[in-house]
């Protein structure tokens, strides 16, 4: 005889018994090897590399968007690549007249009797610094008055009110305050650099009306790039304290700039990007309507919109950058859209089109600059997503700009590289694509 057993209890028991099992996840049986592919069909992938004359048109190179006052670093160079010289002009803030210190548990503010010896302190960007041999840094008192906002290699003052050339191009040297020899490889010096100044030099710098510091380089060919500004670290002697009392004091730079010679070269047939003048090359990419596919049965052309674009990349071959502006470290480059290329130098830039590098915490795409490193024989810029969108929207091409724009990645517009990247005037377009292979019923 059956006992009473309600269907409600049955449901509860059934769910309790089987639901955990239903929640299990598993993978379908997966074989390795091509035997199981229906009909033996697998996708076919091809690559074509288009020469410049079939897709690219160089519209022009423009520069002069930035200068040494737009960056946060300083550059000292001595005949780098046999050509480039660069000097730093810096004025320090007014030295303090009083100092506050604690003695015997009592805080005192006292006037300063004198300053002791000290050091000029800078941080070195070792990736952007190089020298063929020992490089001597020399710190001078500027030998004539200059205008920090307009001084250049040729002019101490270059304003609408008039031009005053330096008596000595690159900054007239006055009294030599200090010198320091760096080993051939600045990287071994560490990130921090201290240039010693004796107390006489410090007192000279501290005096009212000091015209400024001029930092130059001599010796081997090379360049030294800083991170951030120059500061003076010295010791102040309070007037009411014992003679051996020294209070550490730091005086920051009030103005600083570097002047260089020659100016960033341009006007070649190359595709130029970057440098202290922020060169950019405008060019147009015309998309092919079809891509060639050659198999055993012969060749045919397949419409671009009928294939899957696995990768579309611009390929550039580097060329020599003259004037000491060659990259000594990685340079981040990007490709951005240009809506109105006819405006030339003033053509506004659109969005970056090179493939994204990731997504930030807010879900926004990060368009990383593509790193061009010295020694690269081919510079590849993937633009797959942009070209795919263009094909899907029946666009036949786009005007683009190649430029250095590290601010996109680093969030620091001041991180404009001093070096420029040049490429031969014949970029290629590499298209890696897969032919459609649709599943069919058995």
């Amino acid at each position, binding site marked *: 005889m059956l*006992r009473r057993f309600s269907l409600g209890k049955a449901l509860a028991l059934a769910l309790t018994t089987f639901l955990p099992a239903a929640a299990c996840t598993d993978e379908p*049986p997966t074989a390795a090897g091509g035997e199981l592919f*229906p009909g033996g069909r697998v996708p076919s992938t091809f690559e074509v590399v288009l020469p410049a004359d079939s897709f690219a048109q160089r519209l022009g190179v423009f520069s002069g968007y930035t200068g040494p006052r737009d960056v946060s670093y300083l550059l000292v160079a001595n005949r780098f690549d046999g050509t480039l010289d660069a000097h730093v002009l810096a004025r320090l803030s007014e030295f303090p007249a009083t100092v506050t210190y604690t003695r015997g548990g009592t805080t005192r503010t006292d006037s300063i009797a004198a300053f002791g010896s000290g050091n000029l302190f800078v941080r070195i960007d070792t990736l952007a610094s190089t020298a063929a041999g020992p490089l001597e840094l020399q710190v001078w008192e500027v030998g004539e008055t200059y205008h920090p906002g307009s001084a250049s290699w040729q002019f101490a003052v270059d304003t609408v009110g008039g031009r005053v050339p330096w008596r000595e191009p690159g900054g007239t040297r006055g009294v030599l305050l200090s010198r320091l020899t760096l080993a051939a490889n600045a990287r071994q010096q560490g990130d921090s650099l201290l240039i010693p100044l004796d107390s006489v030099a410090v007192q000279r710098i501290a005096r009212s009306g000091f015209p400024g510091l001029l930092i130059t380089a001599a010796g081997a060919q090379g360049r030294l790039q800083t991170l951030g500004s120059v500061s003076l670290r010295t010791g102040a002697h309070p007037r009411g304290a014992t003679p051996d009392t020294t209070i550490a004091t730091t005086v920051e730079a009030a103005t600083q700039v570097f002047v260089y010679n020659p100016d960033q070269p341009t006007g070649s047939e190359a595709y130029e990007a970057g440098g202290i003048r922020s060169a950019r090359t405008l060019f147009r990419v015309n998309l092919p309507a079809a891509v060639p596919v050659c198999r055993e049965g012969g060749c045919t052309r397949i419409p671009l919109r009928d294939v*899957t674009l696995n990768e579309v990349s611009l390929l550039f071959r580097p060329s020599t950058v003259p004037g000491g502006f060659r990259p000594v470290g990685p340079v981040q480059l990007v490709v951005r859209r240009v809506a109105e290329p006819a405006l030339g130098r003033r053509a506004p830039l659109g969005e970056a089109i090179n493939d994204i590098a990731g997504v930030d915490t807010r879900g926004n795409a990060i368009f990383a600059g593509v790193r061009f490193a010295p020694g690269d024989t081919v510079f590849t810029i993937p633009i797959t997503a942009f070209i795919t969108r263009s094909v899907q929207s029946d666009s036949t091409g786009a005007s683009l700009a190649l430029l250095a724009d590290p601010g996109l990645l680093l969030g620091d517009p001041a991180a404009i590289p001093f070096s420029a990247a040049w490429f031969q005037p014949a970029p290629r377009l590499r298209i890696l694509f897969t032919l459609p292979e649709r599943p069919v019923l058995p």
Partner: protein
Amino acid sequence: MIKPNRTLRALGVLFAGAALLSGAGSAAAQSLFASRGLGYLNPPLDGRARGLGGVGLGLPGGGLSLVNPAAIAALPAPALGVTFQPDFYNSRLPGSETEGSTARFPLLHAAFPLGTRWTTSVAYGSYLDQTWAAERSDSLRLPGRTLAVTDRFASHGGVTRLRVSGAYSLTERLAIGVSADLYTGSVRDTLSRRLDPGVPDSLLLNTGVLVPARYGAEWSYRSVGASAGVRWAPSDALNLAAAVSGGATLKARPIEGSDSLAVGKDYTIPLTFDVGASGRVTPSAIVALAAQWSGWSAANDDLASAGGARDSWMVAAGVEWDASQADERSFPVRLGARYSALPFRWGSTQDGNAFPGERALTAGLGARLAGGAALVDLAAERGWRGGGDSVLDESYWRATLTLTLLGR
């Protein structure tokens, strides 16, 4: 007579189970042989039938397997059966071996006696499984670089059978049954290629990930069918049963929104004949036998591009031993064996003998609880597939657990 509210509750249970089934649908894969023809045939058997080698009809007391529509006539009360079935398989192709596990609900069945002679049921059972995947690795040599290539074909889905049955007891020893079947399901096929250029040169830069190529299509399967069966117990010691089922054309059609270039196709659902018998050879033991023939060769032309099909057949035998029949609680023990000739060719049509077979040894344990109001049937099955000229060999362990609840 069953009360209406009980019927509603029972239907609720059925739909809850159907929800479970649909949730587990993507996990209903069990064999790489699902890659051939219309898939892997998975008969909707309960734990008792599995424990007896696959004998799904002609058993004392009837049952809830979807083989014989007349089997439900022997049920003494409303019944609900849910079957759960995990698989552990090992597939071997030349040069590669794959292991894995799957789980599914191959059978859900609710039966309702109406009066003393009529019994009706609704059921959901497995039919064709097309869930499987294959991967292939290669390299693509291009000027200046070599790309790693991974191709993958993945098929998800299958065809299931929804059945409404009615059985009538002509006498206490003779019953007939008929059912209407709705074959329904969908299959989503995806073919993809992944290209990997290797290690990215910088974390900050474009990592060089290449856009994968991916092509997909999804088809729905629909058809209707019917089956009829008879169950006859000429004596207390002997049960005989036979059933036949068939269907209209199985129509595979691209699902709207899927690949616009996909085209549909029609397949023949074959006639299938089942016979089964069981006899009590000792007071505590029965021997059960069953055979099945299915005319899949009717679909040979439909499946010519996929290798074709042949008529399939199956024989199964089992022994059930229950020493505690007098007690309210009983725990029958079962042993069985089965051999099946699978219908779909593995290789091309030039491979004449590339039709695989399946053989299995089974064991089972039942538990009759609460005075017969709750039945638990557990079966373990060790099987092998392959043979002929097919290069694929599989072995598997399969467990089948059925919980049957009877109410008043």
